[in-house]
């Protein structure tokens, strides 16, 4: 049995590709479990989609290849939400509002704040509560 892995992807759909049922094929043809964090279609009819895919590694690779055959930009780093470590003051205000612990205090002695990207579900709470404009959304 092949091991299942989870990968985070951020997809950008230009106007012409927005209406294609790509997610359907990921599930149906590549046997992937899909967990969509965030999706948005802009007024220009461009689309953004941030999702986790879970399945056999070779299926994920084939699925990424399949998505690549469309005019879709794949950002495998999946950074829909970014945190700028140099700009962060370490105030900790975001920490209690982050539902998953992605933003957390890494050391209670020095009260340093750190960001665990893997845990981020892109709820955008931190973007609103950070007083120093440290967190940003790609879309």
């Amino acid at each position, binding site marked *: 049995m092949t091991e299942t892995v989870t990968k985070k992807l951020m997809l950008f759909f230009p106007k012409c590709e927005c209406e294609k049922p790509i997610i359907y094929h990921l599930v149906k043809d590549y046997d992937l479990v899909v967990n969509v964090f965030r999706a948005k279609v802009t007024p220009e009819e461009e689309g953004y989609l941030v999702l986790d895919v879970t399945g056999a590694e070779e299926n994920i690779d084939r699925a990424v290849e399949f998505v690549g055959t469309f005019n879709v930009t794949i950002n495998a780093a999946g950074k829909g939400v970014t945190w700028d470590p140099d700009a962060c003051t370490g105030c900790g*205000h975001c920490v*209690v509002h982050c539902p998953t612990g992605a933003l957390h205090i890494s050391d209670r002695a*020095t009260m340093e704040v750190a960001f665990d990207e893997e845990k981020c579900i892109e709820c955008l709470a931190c973007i609103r509560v950070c*007083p120093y404009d440290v967190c940003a959304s790609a879309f």
Partner: protein
Amino acid sequence: MKTYQEINDRIASGKAVVMTAEEIIDYVEGKGLEAAAAEVDVVTTATFGPMCSSGCVLNFGHSKPKIRMSEAWVEDVLAYTGLAAVDVFLGATQLRHNDPANMYPPGEFRYGGGHVMADLVAGKELQLFALSYGTDEYPLREIRTYFTIDDLNQAVMVNPRNCYQNYNVAINCSDRTLWTYMGKLEADCKNANYCSAGQLSPLLNDPLYETIGVGSSVWLAGAHGHVYAEGTQHAGGGGRNEYDVPTGGSGTLALSGDMKQMSPEFVRGVSLVGYGVSLGVGAGVPIPILNPGVLKRCCIRDEQIVAPITDYSSDYPNATGKVLGHVSYKQLKSGKIDVDGREVPVGSLSSYSKALKIAELLAAEIRSGDFLLSQPYAMLPADTNMKPLKVRDKTT
């Protein structure tokens, strides 16, 4: 017993023994108070957080022909021009022109005076727009130009209130989310926020104002500044706990420093959703170890400092003076506090990690002989209380 002069001589010769207010705790415990007091010259304290009572005085120099600015905006943020011709005062909480504020609450408050100050220190190019009624010697009626901090003759930060000695822990007992200067407070006491560097905080390490006074040299966002007055709302009187931590009113400091010497890391624009804009600024204050008593009070620990838990849905806005209880900074920094038997997660608005960095930077500057202390020429009052604003009829 040491004098300011002896301490400064040791600093100047590069021999001063300097520790942060965090390091000194264990050091004194190991060494004993008397021996440590003889050895240690300076303890550094620090704080970093939003300081709403902040602003700056800018001098633009004269244009050709000259203008006597009667209204001025920097990056569309209104500056006060009721000073000399090309002097303005820009306040940290001033909103950018046309910001919808809380028209559709809670507002975002993206840019204001604090951001202008941060951009200035960061060396960015900013727009000045000014109007005038025109006079014989200042004929120009309107000016629009661009400048950086290097183009200004002076850019001086003033903090009429900084380094609050102690502060509330904010909580929200109502059934709707509050957006305050203490951050986002979820309904039904689901979180709490505090704002102090606790055991690193300047006036908690000199709670009786024995060394920090008017004229004391301070580190303000990287510049060498000073205490120019007692801070606004300074209330040195009132109760103290067994460690001299204020339980009622608190002391504050008014600080000033040259923005041209400041580091952008410690001058930051603040946007608080639903509340407004402000300035995040870092300050460090050195405490000369004149005698064992001064040192003893520098050994204050987070567990000895308590802050009142205040309901920002009713007791704070209505100034009832009621508190829901007290917690120590040790509990606050653990990330959870107990409120009426319920565990409540806590966050903060001030940054302990930045305060620690400032205390270390200041200690390094003093050790290297670059930062001398100055003896205050007036002490802060220890017997005053804060007066409320009374709404009354004219008496005469």
